[in-house]
């Protein structure tokens, strides 16, 4: 039973939709070789079975090890300071967002921004939702196949979603759920019957399984290795933040804000320093950083592909003369480009 694993339907829905082959859009290289379809009268080959097994193992690894969409990320206080980014690969038409907003004072409207990953990308305000009571749950569905106030994203491209409000010094949001799905279909799981030792294995049976695996969407070109991206709270010297990642891609990209005074962060992979960011004297400063695991300039022991690793941001220096000094890690993800 290939898909009997207990996965929340909201996450499984797009996967199943793709399994059934209903969806359009680019699914680029999956990173593994798919099994070929078979035909009655041909032999069952070790090659074909191995590709099927290999693909299922890849799929299991890619989709079923972590359930990143179940995460809730609580953000309180100022949106402007505490902004977190949610990273998605555009694979399905509709972006579903459900948030609980809380206005400590009058937070004004909830504003949703989108930005593609990469250098020199523009942040677009793609949606504004009025907040009328507090607390309030807002459900928003956006058609990401269409132009959203200037923001266009193609299938396979990576983009980030973040929240702000009208008044940056008040209000908060709990992101309950965020995922893409296709609203045009009702997903139905493939039905693959069980067999006995006397069942004749024919092309219909095998191609049902093979087609299901072939139709699974491509491996995301980005992988979000963190549970709850963002770093609410003040950090003093010797403070740190940690996330668990699974190494699959060439680069790890991460961003930080260093605020109000001289602050220094060391980014580490498995407790090995890969980058040190020092703000120098100044107010708010933004940094977008990356580390190439392949060229490995810091000479660390790079985690094996598929291995979990510890990614941490440690504050080894904060100017004590600026008690409000703080630092935030705004996003982090792995990607091949």
């Amino acid at each position, binding site marked *: 039973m290939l898909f009997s694993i207990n996965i929340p339907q909201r996450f499984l829905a797009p996967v199943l939709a793709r399994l059934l082959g209903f969806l359009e859009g680019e699914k680029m290289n999956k990173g593994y070789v798919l099994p*070929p379809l078979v035909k009655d*009268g041909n032999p069952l*080959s070790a090659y074909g079975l191995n590709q099927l097994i290999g693909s299922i193992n890849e799929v299991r690894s890619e989709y079923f090890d972590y359930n990143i969409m179940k995460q809730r990320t609580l953000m309180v206080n100022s949106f402007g300071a505490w902004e977190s980014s949610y990273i998605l690969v555009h694979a399905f038409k509709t972006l579903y967002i459900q948030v609980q907003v809380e206005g400590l004072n009058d937070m004004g409207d909830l504003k949703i921004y989108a930005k593609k990953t990469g250098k020199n990308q523009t942040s677009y305000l793609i949606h504004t939702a009025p907040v009328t009571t507090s607390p309030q749950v807002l459900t928003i569905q956006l058609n990401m196949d269409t132009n959203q106030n200037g923001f266009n994203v193609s299938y396979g491209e990576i983009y980030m979603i973040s929240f702000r409000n009208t008044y940056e010094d008040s209000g908060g949001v709990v992101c309950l759920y965020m995922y893409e799905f296709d609203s045009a279909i009702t997903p139905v799981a493939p039905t693959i019957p069980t067999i006995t030792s006397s069942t004749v294995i*024919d092309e219909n049976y095998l191609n049902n399984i093979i087609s299901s695996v072939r139709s699974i969407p491509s491996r995301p070109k980005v992988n979000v290795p963190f549970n709850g991206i963002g770093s609410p709270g003040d950090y003093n010297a010797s403070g740190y933040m940690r996330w668990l990642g699974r190494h699959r891609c060439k680069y790890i990209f991460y961003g930080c804000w260093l605020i109000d005074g001289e602050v220094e962060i060391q980014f580490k992979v498995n407790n090995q320093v890969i980058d040190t960011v020092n703000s120098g004297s100044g107010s708010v400063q933004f940094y977008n950083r990356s580390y190439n695991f392949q060229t490995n300039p810091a000479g660390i022991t790079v985690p094996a592909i598929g291995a979990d690793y510890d990614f941490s941001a440690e504050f080894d220096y904060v100017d004590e003369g600026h008690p409000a000094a703080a630092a935030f890690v705004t996003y982090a993800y792995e990607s091949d480009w």
Partner: protein
Amino acid sequence: MAQISFNLLFDWDNSGAFNFNESNYLELASGDESMSPPGESSFSGSGFVSEMNLDLINTDSRFSTTNSSSSIYNYIRDGAFLQKRVRLEVIIDGVTYTIFRGFIKSISETLKDYKSIGKVRIKCRSQDDIIKNMQISTPAATTRLAIKEQYDESTLISLILSNAGLTNGVHFRNQDYVLITPTLDRGLFTIPYFWLEKESPIEDAWLLAAACGGRFYFNSEDGLFYYKNAYGFGKGKSATSQATINESNCSGIDYADNDGELIESVSYTARTRYITEVKEIWGSQKPIKVQPLETLTIDCDVSNPIVEVSGYNFVTTAAAGNLITSGIGIVINNVSSKKVNLSIINGNDRLIFLRNFVLEGRLLEPLDNTEYEKSSSASFWSNKTGTEKRISDNPYIQTLAQAKAIADMTLDRQSIFSPKITVKKYRGNFIRVGEMVSVSVVGKFSGNFIVTKSKFNLSKTGFYQDLDLFNASGIYGLQTGGYFIIGTHSGNDNKKLFY
């Protein structure tokens, strides 16, 4: 003694009806069909274009291309004969066999003199000869589609033929055909990456078939292109013997013990690739000069197959070096696998130079090759030294799993000593290359064999074939009945997996 008659038909008027029966002029028809070119292994990466030579009596100068009195003069004059269709049918004991179906390649005339009555020799080739000479390129969109869909070799052969201008259902039948038996077997392997850049579609299909242990060929019987996958290759037609050959229906059978096809070990190289990140894929070596109000079209040759072109960058200056920031348009007209054709539109009324012009996009670039090697474990080799078959340049062997499967198959095919059987002047039903026949010589040997070469001869002395044969029982590690067949077997059957 078999009853023999024949029809030699020409489609001189291109009607498709073969209205011209020239049988009365035929003195001799001979032809070759083979799995591989002469001197090459029957399991090489090259196929063979079937050919037929016709010697026609030309006493009345009917086939003279310079004879304006000939009733077919306008069909053959000034090279008009080239690629006219021809078909030879032989009726053996009331059964009609289409021996050859192809196109005229040349006509050479021996003029009438005191020694000769005057003859022409017409050389004919099967349709793959025409297609073979084409040079086709596929668009980058096809490369992307192939990456996305990860086709098997049969689908790619269908794609190749379609790109060569052939029509599914007319020139071949792919796996989309349900009611009529496809001529392209279902593929057994997934080939992740595909592109063509000024390549012969036939030679590429041969390579593709060889990379998958199968055979791609033009069937001069029905005029369709065929692909036999690695399993079909060893079964011949319908997995049953198509003829029983013995000393009574041929003039001789040679049993040659030699090592022509014998190997002790194999080394197959998988040429893997990956899709790059977006990067510069082409840069102009020098500033591009565009005249005032000119639209300049250029070709940008890229070293590796293009997956997509995502953008471009350049700086425009006037002749004096000052920046130009408006009035310039770039239109990408066409992106083939290794070439981008684009137009630069200068809307300014002065000369401009595009400097540091680069195209950005993603390519398919090679990774390090991986190699699979294996030596035969057969006791036969314990006191012998054999040769190694090394395949390192077939671009369609793209994964180690595929290399392993094909190498294991090749080793099973060729590491066991297999005699070469040659049948001389077989007179019976017509046998085609790839078919399986039974051969028996009382007191010597008997068994099933695959036909690897065939030569036919039709003359006033009758019709016969010379055949080269390969032992069918040594094609795989097991007999074909030993494998688990989809749609036939269950877990209770004691069957093995194919490679």
